[in-house]
């Protein structure tokens, strides 16, 4: 594209300097905080962090919830994506627009809406009590269930978008071809749809998992201090305790988990390919 490499490098230099000075350097300093002690470099802060049972609970809860949200969104996402690609082109665009619509609404507004829906006098409880299914309203808010529901609603569109585009790239008639060759729906999914959409699943899964792991507003509002997640714990350590070392540890854990999730999903996808 460019006559010489120097010209190209010169053009990227401002952006590179900007990113290095204002992003990489501060992040590096912040993350190194946890390794620096008066006695020199040490992993002690990590040891201390995981020594606390409460922190371990928060760690496993965050990991499990993010994984559960990713898994649930994959199940719902495949069904929704198949339904969408089966529609005639005109209504496909319309339904796809409805899927994207929530992404245009602020997550704060969306999360507050869940307070209205899931609260003691919200309409889920009113309906359940009104129909005589329950005697007293269910306590949904400030539980893992509430955070799960909020995160699922928040990130499901990303999974659906990834899977729809993956399915649109499948050869036309691959599914009916498999059915005529004797495959039931489970076999059609495992032998044809899954292998042909694994890239979309990896992308969608990474987006949903890392999104759920690093979301702050939803666990803060729907989980509160009762259901602490890594992200809300991080905020608490900084804002309440002024404990930047713990915050740095948590930030590092989040980064490592996000990258590992992506690598793991990619590996799962390519292992399937190698076998096929």
């Amino acid at each position, binding site marked *: 594209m460019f006559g010489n490499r120097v010209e190209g490098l010169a053009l990227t230099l401002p952006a590179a300097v900007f990113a290095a000075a204002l992003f990489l350097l501060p992040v590096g300093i912040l993350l190194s905080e946890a390794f620096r002690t008066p006695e020199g470099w040490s992993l002690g802060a990590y040891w201390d962090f995981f020594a606390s049972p409460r922190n371990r609970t928060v760690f496993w809860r965050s990991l499990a919830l993010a994984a559960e949200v990713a898994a649930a969104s994959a199940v719902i996402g495949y069904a929704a994506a198949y339904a969408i690609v089966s529609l005639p082109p005109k209504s496909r665009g319309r339904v796809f627009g409805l899927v994207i619509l929530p992404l245009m609404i602020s997550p704060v507004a969306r999360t507050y809406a869940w307070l209205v829906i899931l609260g003691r006098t919200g309409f889920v409880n009113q309906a359940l009590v009104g129909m005589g299914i329950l005697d007293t309203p269910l306590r949904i808010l400030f539980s893992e269930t509430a955070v799960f529901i909020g995160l699922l609603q928040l990130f499901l569109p990303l999974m659906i978008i990834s899977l729809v585009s993956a399915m649109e790239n499948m050869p036309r008639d691959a599914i009916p071809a498999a059915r*005529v*060759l004797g495959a039931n729906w489970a076999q059609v999914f495992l032998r044809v749809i899954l292998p042909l959409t694994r890239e979309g699943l990896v992308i969608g899964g990474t987006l949903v998992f890392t999104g759920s792991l690093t979301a702050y507003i939803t666990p803060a509002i729907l989980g509160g201090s009762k259901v602490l997640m890594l992200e809300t714990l991080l905020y608490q350590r900084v804002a309440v305790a002024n404990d930047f070392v713990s915050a740095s540890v948590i930030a590092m854990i989040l980064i490592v988990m996000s990258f590992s999730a992506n690598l793991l999903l990619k590996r799962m996808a390519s292992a399937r390919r190698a076998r096929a």
Partner: protein
Amino acid sequence: MSEFLSLEDLTLAYGGSVAVDRLNLAIRQGELIALLGPSGCGKTTTMRAIAGLLAPRSGTIRLDGKDITRVAPSRREVGLVFQSYALFPHLSVFENVAFGLRLRKEPDLAARVAEGLATVGLSDFADRAPAALSGGQQQRVALARSLVMNPKVLLLDEPLSNLDARLRLEMRMELQRVQRETGVTMVFVTHDQAEALALADRIVVMRGGAIEQVGTPEQIWTEPASGFVADFVGFETILPDPETGGALAWRPAAVTLGSGPHSGVIRGASFAGAHREYVLDTPLGVVKAETPASAPPLAPGAEVAFDLPRERAVRLASA
């Protein structure tokens, strides 16, 4: 031979629109049937219903004595070669052909796949990816993939339309050979009358979701039952017959140009190698005629006498 595959009062619909309306058709074992018609006539829809990919609104499909109307596609023992071939891009040629056999837990898998690939002349391509094959080779893989399942009926959707002229002839002979060797009952869908005439034992001409005529290629070619079929097989001049109230139809070659009781103006002329084709505007209507290439050419705009000999026309019940 008695009927092997029968469609009884079959009505097929997508949502609110009826694509095929109370269709009745009986096919014998080992027959090669062409469903012929323009796009939108319901031929592909009918084929998908036979394969079980579309549930009929009403009517019955019977195969080999059994009612299969509500049987899942996976248990119908019907093969389908898609127009797009629909090979699985993540599987090798071998695994594509093995797909159905694996699901069936075929004990003799490797041998059966090898046999299937040999039938279509692709033994050396087992380890290739489908994307590395030409269109014609991909289609033969799709054919092998269906054939190894020993289907009772093999359905083919526009099997020749994606191939170039040379491959088309090759594939046509290939299909006839496979049909001869395996004796499988074949139903193929086409919009090309030449293809249907060359391949089929019997042709089912469809129009607007209904059968227009069923017959051997010779019958369809020489005794079209309606103006629609006549037009489809090249009787391009169709005029009402005042004597019978029906209609008469002529091929271009049956029209005498240069002499006769009628006259018309040449609107279009084109050279087609072995002959010249003319379109005439006449008081009777549009007439299409041809002359041997050796005859002197006629210029557009010229007035010319012509005759429509009754003995060279086919009689139709209606135009």
